[in-house]
């Protein structure tokens, strides 16, 4: 706990809370360097090490999410194969800055986290792996708050097994 990583993740949280904070931290070291681009450049290493979805969300955003019916997730009832599960999300929430996909029962809960700059639509589709039947959680960051949707997807052939 004494490692400097903690400082970095704290910094990262700050950055992710809003584009405005970025200039203060001074990470604008990229050639094109618009404020949010610098934030986008950081890969959330620690969040991708967390085993549970709660820890991953905390590491990624530094706060907790509340369920919202404004977050619409489209995922199959039964995955045809855990190695390739198409999951997509759309939302009517305004000012979306980030969308993340988590699988509770995977060895690493966080699967993907997308940064949504202003002007990009809050709709994302991707294909994820699921080790077994699990809740899939989508977290949407909008206006600095976190909203989530959860759906159980049954997996009969795991994407992380043998």
């Amino acid at each position, binding site marked *: 706990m004494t490692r400097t990583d903690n400082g970095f993740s704290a910094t990262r949280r700050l950055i992710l809370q809003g584009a405005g904070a970025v200039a203060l931290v001074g990470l604008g070291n990229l050639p094109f360097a618009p404020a949010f681009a610098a934030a986008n450049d950081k890969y959330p290493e620690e969040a991708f090490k967390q085993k549970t979805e709660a820890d991953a969300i905390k590491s990624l955003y530094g706060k907790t999410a509340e369920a919202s019916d404004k977050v619409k997730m489209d995922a*199959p*009832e039964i*995955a*045809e194969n855990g*190695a*390739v599960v198409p999951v997509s999300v759309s939302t009517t929430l305004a000012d979306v800055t980030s969308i993340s996909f988590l699988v509770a029962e995977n060895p690493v809960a966080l699967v993907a986290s997308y940064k949504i700059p202003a002007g990009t639509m809050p709709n994302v589709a991707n294909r994820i792996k699921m080790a077994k039947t699990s809740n899939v959680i989508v977290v949407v960051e909008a206006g600095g708050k976190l909203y989530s949707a959860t759906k159980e997807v049954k997996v009969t*052939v795991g994407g992380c097994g043998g």
Partner: protein
Amino acid sequence: MKLRSATQFTAAAFALAVLAFAAPPAVSADKVDPVADEKAFKKFFYDKFPKLKPEDFVNGPYSMDADLYKQWQDKEQFPPYEFSLELGKEMFSKPFKNGKTYGDCFPNQGIGIRQDYPTFDEKEGKVITLELALNRCREANGEPAFSYVRDEMAALTAYMAFTSRGKPFNIKVPNDPRALAAYENGKEYFYTRRGQLNFSCATCHVQSPGERVRTEVLAPALGIVNAMPIYRSEWNGMGTTSRRFTTCNSQIRGVPLTPQDDEYRNVEYYLSYVSNGLPISGPGARP
């Protein structure tokens, strides 16, 4: 040890079960009639799945289950066989060391001809599948043959199928005793139970399509070869018709034959013939 005693039991139970049924006389062999077979085969599947249109059968399990269909539609937006298809196109157009190309070995430079294979070679008296023709083309041009079950062959056949998409299978069984014998042998292979599990191809793909075996929704035999080659999520990659046949055999605990052995060529001939008129849909994506 636990496993082995289970094996013993299965073997014994199987043998006894067969013995119990050994008595009733088998239907006597009629004369070989591919036209009647094709009609009966299609009628069986059309009756079993009255809601499906004929061309739906070439999409296998996806036509049988709404949830699967949706996942397939999502995948097809940018299908997983895309890379194989591009590789195949590149390989197909690249000349051999002697300057010739694959196209030179085929009618119409190999474009839009998938639906004509397998074909019966009257000179040789045997069935020639597309995979076999591709390797013969390579060897005739001084190139080593590809493995029938690996990515290169899948890529080449993927490209050739792609250029033939939508064209109806047009397999011919000429009135030649050797062709009829090959066809009949393919049919026999299709219906013959084998392996310790005592399954025939038909056990899964005639009796139970649309049902789940463990986790998989079984594809109907009608139209099954139209989608070859396939990207299978289970394989994490592409598979040829040869790969499909050999893995089917080992899954039922039978030792697979060598790819492109007569029986495999003949069963592909039979299955393609009875799917005549249904469109080529390969390369396909499957769970």
